[in-house]
């Protein structure tokens, strides 16, 4: 999709600049963009490498499986159709925990495994089952305990309090998740 949007943005901008007489500004901006991409990448090396290191330690411990036990009641509420499928439930809760801890790279492979397990029980192989639909919507809701990437960016950009957005992120993502879950529960009966 970006193969269409990206050139469109550039073409529209430069044509508009040519017509409106703003072309000098637009031309100077080209090289400024490169410079700020380089500057930002250098600061990213610090913050993103740091978090990846911390998160790697977390992955090696039993913290993840401990937390996933706490999720059982939630999983049973969200996935009533998976009654006896313990393997699917376990994979789903590991995926949710990985998401909560901000382990995006670990969450996706776990999530794909859960999809595979649910697909085995799916009567219509080319259509999402209710459980699969709920699972995907949950994964698009980005529930995270610590939005590490955003905090990393904020401190790279010189914020005076980079982590001051955590509570607001929690509220916004919980609201988003509740809306997504409710919509899914309603839609799955009708479509």
């Amino acid at each position, binding site marked *: 999709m970006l193969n269409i949007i990206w050139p469109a943005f550039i073409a529209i901008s430069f044509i508009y*600049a040519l017509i409106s007489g703003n072309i000098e500004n637009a031309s100077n901006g080209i090289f400024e963009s490169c410079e700020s991409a380089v500057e930002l990448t250098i600061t990213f090396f610090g913050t993103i*490498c740091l978090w990846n290191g911390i998160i790697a330690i977390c992955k090696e411990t039993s913290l993840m499986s401990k937390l996933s036990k706490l999720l059982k009641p939630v999983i049973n509420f969200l996935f009533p159709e998976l009654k006896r499928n313990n393997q699917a439930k376990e994979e789903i809760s590991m995926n949710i925990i990985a998401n909560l801890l901000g382990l995006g790279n670990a969450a996706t492979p776990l999530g794909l495994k859960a999809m595979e397990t649910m697909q085995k029980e799916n009567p219509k*192989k080319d259509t999402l089952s209710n459980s699969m639909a709920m699972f995907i919507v949950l994964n*698009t809701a980005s529930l995270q305990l610590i939005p590490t990437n*955003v*905090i990393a960016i904020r401190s790279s*950009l010189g914020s005076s309090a980079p982590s001051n957005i955590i509570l607001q992120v929690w*509220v916004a993502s919980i609201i988003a998740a509740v809306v*997504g879950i409710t919509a899914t529960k309603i839609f799955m009966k009708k479509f």
Partner: protein
Amino acid sequence: MSIINYLSASAIPIVILIILYYGIKEKKKVFDIFLEGAKDGLKIVIDLFPTLIGIFLAVGALRNSGILDFIIEIISPVTDLLKIPSQILPLAMLRPISGSASMGVAVDIMQTYGVDTTIGMITSVIMGSTETTIYTIAIYSSFVKIKKTRFVLAAALLADLAGMIMATCLF
């Protein structure tokens, strides 16, 4: 408000403490593991760099040519109605489509309007509380060869919209 700030500020040290506690308790070589993980981080940043250049070029062009101001002016009646600052619209539009592209846009917005301003804070909360919805749906569905995703896109985009409106209401 100071309690909120205190909680926000303690969250990261506490999480690091808990992770280190488990690492030491389970006798892991925590520093070696940290180094390995940090090394993987290098690859993530290097992979991100070309995208950042591309996106900064496109978004910078939108801004410097003056067309962004022009578009913002046209759609501001609608965004005013939803109480969404029009400056964050490019982000709202790209967020569901591409993670690295929306990251580039978010950075651009925060650099232009300030990280700690209302717009900067809203941008941060949107980035933290939404996902690359369309990409996620595509990956998970295509992996098990599913073609009919039913209502999932609608439900997920509805959730994104709720998250974005909530993010703007919080400031």
